Structure formats: structure tokens, C-alpha cells
């Protein structure tokens, strides 16, 4: 027996979750193992359940937290949280009421496990290899870092999952992105994913599930893999994933909600079987050499406008590119290096984890944020905040003149009052540089935590490889 044809990891996850196979007439019914919800995209779904007299089919498989509309400043003297608006406060309150009414576990204010949904679920070990995971949030692709099939859905589908624990899905095409070689000092997962999006384009992944492979991906820790998978949607991909390995299992061994003891050993044996088989075929294959990736930022108004920090902004060949340049106030041929910066934001589901904050603290220790720069550092979760504070990271950040905030999405989506001002230029570790994303008229350069921190110190965009003089010497030698 030569056995079955080799399968990709996506094929395996898909096959394991098919309730009703797809046909020409209808999409597949796919079972969902973990459903995450937050305050912004769930209220109308609960209303739909009420209107139809339905209850959640598996309330135990849905977990809730609040992150988008939540203030990142502590409660005022009256004990009340400083919400940006009554509507925001009402929305957060409605999530709490919906969870209570429908029996869904909520990681609320006061829980030491609250956080950005894509930060807190992996911390808890809710996110595990082999799972199907959905959330009314496009950055659900983050969870693919664990070898899960994880993707964002709309609010109608949030209702579908609540009511049936299933979704109607057509199978996607597959794309393998292999990152060979080793990343240079000063270059991280954020630079890799910006480089990838720059290469395949902001719509280059449409209709595809991406699997990230290769030595440079294997060498990444879980936090870096989450950064990588997080921005798959910025290339238009349905999901991004990395095959689970010992790095994954070590993370899960420490996660409180992951299986324990013998159950964990059994799970690991299953998880090891999930990687794409030798010889599995992908619809599209992309190869990138890690050594060609430099610190990368965006110059325009979508994440596909990624270039190296010292590369010239490309010429504007059409009115659309011209529009992006006009909005940003840049000229072709200029480099981003040297651009004067008004705001630096560190945080978000892309780069709001402990590793990111350690990198930022490493840059800021013994240095000051330039006087004209406002810098905001927002931990991705209560756990990240606690651990960072245990290491004294908050003191380094405050001593440098930056603000240390409470966990939440904050300035990435700018729903909670944390805004970049009109016309201001921000270097952000977040994931979207769309017009007005960080506030009306705000201009955003997406970058890694190292690049963001180094820009804050210099007051302008600077090359974080300057922080690694031994690397430059070795290059010269």
C-alpha cells in the first residue's frame, strides 16, 4: 500500500472538521472548535438569536473578552472607566449582559486574563493545534501560528456559530510561503510579514490559506509566529498557519487551559501528525530568502506598500499610487529613514506581546523618547502587563518618557479615544495603515517594535540595525 496522496496541513484540518461535504450545490458545513467573541461584532448576532428564539448550541465553546472599545486609562477618581463615548460603554455592557444571559464565559474587567482576543486566547491555551477557530475579527488568522485553521467572520456568521457551532465554507486554495536562511539582527517577524505582503501584494493571498514554512519560521518563537500569521489577512489571505512543533508544545505545556498529564501527551502525538506531508502540493509556492529582508515599513495607505527602511519610495505610476503618496505627503525617491515622527504606538494583536515589549524596553533602557514624540505602549493583555511589570519594563518605558497603558486594541483601531491627530505621522507596530485608521487624517507607517522604539528615540525613522554594531562590522568584514 502506498497509502493516500500527501496532504497539506490545511487539507488535514479541513477533512477533520467536515460535517457535511461540499458539493456543487452547497458549501461544506464545517465544525468550529473554538469561537471567540468581543463587544464590537457580536451584539447584532445575539439579537438574531433572540429574534429567532434560539440558544447557543455549545456555549462552552465560545469565549468572550472586551478589547476594542475599552479605555486604556485606569478608572477615574469616581471609579468609572473613562470610555470614549456612552455608545462604547453601552456596547461593552451589552457584551457582559449577553454573556450572562446565554451562559458564555467572559474575561471581563477585573479578570487577570482579559486582553486583546488574539493575545489572551493563546495565553490561556484555548488556542491549540488542529482546531478550527473563528472570531468576528479579521486578525483571527493570528491563531494559525499554533497549527490551527483560524479565520475572521462577519456578524451573521457569529450568529451561525452561536446557533449551530458550524459555518458554511468553500474550501480555499493553498499557498506555501517558505522563508529560507536566517534573519539578520534587527530584523524580526514583523519585517518578514511586511516584506511578504509587499512581495505578493495586498490582494495576493485572496482565496488562499497560507502555510509559512522554512528554517527562518522554525527558528521563530510562538510570539513571532503569531505576528507572522496575524497579518496574513493584510495580503487578503483567508488564514495563515505554521505547523506545530516543540516550540508550540512548550508554549502549550505552560498554558493553563491546555490538556494536562497523559491527555497532553496524547494531544502532542496527534498534533505532530498535523504537519503537511512530504510532497504535499500547494496551489502557489513562494520562496523568500531571509537574508534579503531588511527592516521594513510601509510608505502608503495599504500594507502592500512595504519597503526597506533605506529603500527609495517607488515612483507613482498611476493616480491610485499618487493618491496614497499625496495622503502621506511623500515623494517618490525619498527614503522613510529620516522622516520626522510625531507619534509612536507599540501594541495591538500584531505586536503587543511580552517579547515585543522586551524589545522596546531594550531600546529605551537608558535612553529618552525625543521631546517632540508622543509614545504610547499598550500591553496586549493583563498577563502581558503583569509579566512586563514584574520585569520592570513599565519603569523603563515611563523613565524614557513614554506612556504605559492598560491592555486593549487602543490606537490600532482608534475606537477608544486613543488617536493619532490629523496630519500627524505615526510609526505603529499595528497592522493597518489605511487612511484614517488611527484617527481622521492620521498617517501611519507600519513597523516592527524595534523600528518603532528606535524611531521614538531618534525623533525620526531610523534603521534599527544601528542598534547591532557587531552586525555592521561583520558585514563590512
Amino acid at each position, binding site marked *: 500500500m502506498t497509502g493516500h496522496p500527501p496532504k497539506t496541513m490545511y487539507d488535514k484540518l479541513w477533512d477533520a472538521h467536515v460535517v457535511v461535504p461540499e458539493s456543487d450545490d452547497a458549501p461544506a458545513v464545517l465544525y468550529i472548535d473554538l469561537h471567540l467573541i468581543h463587544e464590537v461584532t457580536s451584539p447584532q448576532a445575539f439579537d438574531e438569536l433572540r429574534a429567532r428564539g434560539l440558544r447557543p448550541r455549545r456555549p462552552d465553546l465560545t469565549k468572550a473578552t472586551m478589547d476594542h472599545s475599552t479605555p486604556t486609562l485606569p478608572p477615574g477618581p469616581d471609579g468609572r472607566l473613562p470610555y470614549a463615548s456612552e455608545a462604547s460603554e*453601552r456596547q461593552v455592557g451589552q457584551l457582559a449582559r449577553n454573556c450572562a444571559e446565554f451562559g458564555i464565559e467572559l474575561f471581563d474587567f477585573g479578570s487577570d486574563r482579559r486582553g486583546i482576543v488574539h493575545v489572551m486566547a493563546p495565553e490561556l491555551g484555548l488556542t491549540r493545534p488542529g482546531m478550527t477557530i473563528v472570531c468576528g475579527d479579521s486578525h483571527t488568522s493570528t491563531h494559525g501560528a499554533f497549527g490551527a485553521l483560524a479565520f475572521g467572520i462577519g456578524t451573521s456568521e457569529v450568529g451561525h456559530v452561536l446557533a449551530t457551532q458550524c459555518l458554511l465554507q468553500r474550501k480555499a486554495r493553498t499557498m506555501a510561503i517558505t522563508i529560507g536562511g536566517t534573519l539578520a539582527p534587527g530584523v524580526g517577524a514583523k519585517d518578514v510579514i511586511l516584506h511578504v505582503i509587499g512581495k505578493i501584494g495586498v490582494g495576493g493571498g485572496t482565496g488562499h490559506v497560507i502555510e509559512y514554512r522554512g528554517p527562518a519560521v522554525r527558528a521563530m518563537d510562538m510570539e513571532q509566529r503569531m505576528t507572522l500569521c496575524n497579518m496574513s489577512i493584510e495580503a487578503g489571505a483567508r488564514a495563515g498557519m505554521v505547523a506545530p512543533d516543540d516550540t508550540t508544545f512548550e508554549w502549550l505545556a505552560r498554558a493553563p487551559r491546555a490538556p494536562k498529564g497523559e491527555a497532553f501527551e496524547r494531544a502532542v502525538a496527534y498534533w505532530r501528525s498535523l504537519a503537511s506531508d512530504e510532497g504535499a502540493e500547494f496551489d502557489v509556492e513562494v520562496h523568500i530568502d531571509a537574508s534579503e529582508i531588511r527592516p521594513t515599513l510601509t510608505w502608503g495607505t495599504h500594507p502592500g506598500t512595504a519597503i526597506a527602511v533605506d529603500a527609495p519610495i517607488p515612483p507613482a505610476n498611476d493616480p491610485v499610487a499618487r493618491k496614497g503618496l499625496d495622503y502621506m505627503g511623500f515623494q517618490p525617491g525619498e527614503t522613510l529613514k529620516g522622516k520626522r515622527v510625531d507619534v509612536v504606538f507599540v501594541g495591538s494583536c500584531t505586536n503587543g506581546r511580552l517579547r515585543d515589549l522586551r524589545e522596546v524596553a531594550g531600546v529605551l533602557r537608558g535612553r529618552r523618547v525625543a521631546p517632540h514624540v508622543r509614545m504610547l505602549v499598550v500591553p496586549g493583555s493583563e498577563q502581558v502587563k503583569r509579566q512586563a511589570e514584574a520585569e520592570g519594563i513599565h519603569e523603563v518605558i515611563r523613565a524614557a518618557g513614554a506612556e504605559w497603558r492598560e491592555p486593549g486594541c487602543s490606537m490600532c483601531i482608534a475606537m477608544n479615544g486613543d488617536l493619532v491627530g490629523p496630519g500627524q505621522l505615526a510609526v505603529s507596530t499595528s497592522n493597518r495603515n489605511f487612511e484614517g485608521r488611527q484617527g481622521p487624517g492620521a498617517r501611519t507607517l507600519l513597523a516592527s517594535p524595534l523600528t518603532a522604539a528606535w524611531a521614538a528615540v531618534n525623533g525620526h525613522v531610523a534603521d534599527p540595525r544601528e542598534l547591532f554594531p557587531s552586525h555592521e562590522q561583520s558585514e563590512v568584514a
Partner: protein
Amino acid sequence: MQSAAATRPAPPRRDPLVQIVSRSVVLPQTNIDTDQIIPARFLSTTTREGLGRHAFHDWRWLADGSPNPDFPFNRPENAGRTILLAGCNFGCGSSREHAPWALRDLGLRAVVSSGIADIFRNNALKNGLLPVVLPEPVVQMLMRRPDDELEIDIATRELRTPDRQVFHFPLDDFARTCLLEGVDELGWLLARENEIRLYEERFHAR
């Protein structure tokens, strides 16, 4: 069981969508993201209604709140048009269903582009907003003739121009049936109860 089912409100059925006949509004920009369609600061709502006035908010309204006269949706000749012709990769970005809610509330029934982002496309179909993907040269040609009255026929998956050009667009059989017959996807999923229960039993057995 039966009595519980009997007390349930009847599943809502959507109005069928069979044909769209309209002139077009043109937004030639590529990569129009969901933050342009409906900026995040308007997502604090807990209902689906009333988002149309914030559709394309930062392009449509000037800083003082007055209409931007250059923006196509503010031009009097475009009033009542239900087809949007947009640049490639329309609807990229977030999963917010507020985007199709806002466009429907603005009066649109179809978005025609050479590329439509996956999640937006999915959300649009659930809200009676038809995503029509056609080759870039066809979209470019249509953009030059926004005053042509276009006919989009869902049963035949055709877009027709007044000079009798016919263009076929891809539309999943299931999506087509749902639109034509006003089938409710959640109702359809709920009817798979037996298969879902069997899957759960099988899963727990392994």
C-alpha cells in the same frame, strides 16, 4: 421538542434579489478598505441600522460636516443609483459586517470590481448586496460609461449593457439560490441538526 419548535418565531426570510437595473456610481480607487467604507469610530453601535450616513464618511463629508461636492455619492446625478463600480480588491481589511450594512443602507445592491476581498464578499452575500467580479478591462470600460443603465441578472449570472454586451460573472450555486429564493443561511444550517449531532458524537468518540 415539537412544542418548543412551535413557540419559536418563524425564521425570517429575506426578500429575494433577482435583477438589478441601474446606472452606476464610480469609485476607481483600488484597495478600498473597510475603514474607508465605514470608519471604526462608527462601530460602537449595537444595531445594524442607520449606518448609511457614515458610509465612506471621511471621503464623503468635509471636516466641517458639509458634503464633499467632489465625492461621487454627493453628486445629484448619482442619487438613487444602486450599482457601485470600484477598483480592484474592494472591501479589503477588517471582517466588519457593518461595511455591507452601511452600503445597503446607502441604497446599493451590487458592487462590481475586478477583485473583491473574501470576507467582505461573504458578508455582502448575507445582506443582499451582490458582489460581481469581472475582468479588469471590462470594469474599466464600464467605469467610462457610468450613465449606461446596466442590467444584472442573478439567475443567468449576467451583466448586460444597453449596447447588448453580455458579461458572465462567477456566483456560487448556493449563493445564487439564496439570493433568488431569499433562503436564509442560518435556517439552512439549523436544518443540518442531525449531521451536526452525529459529527459531535463521532468527535467525542475518538
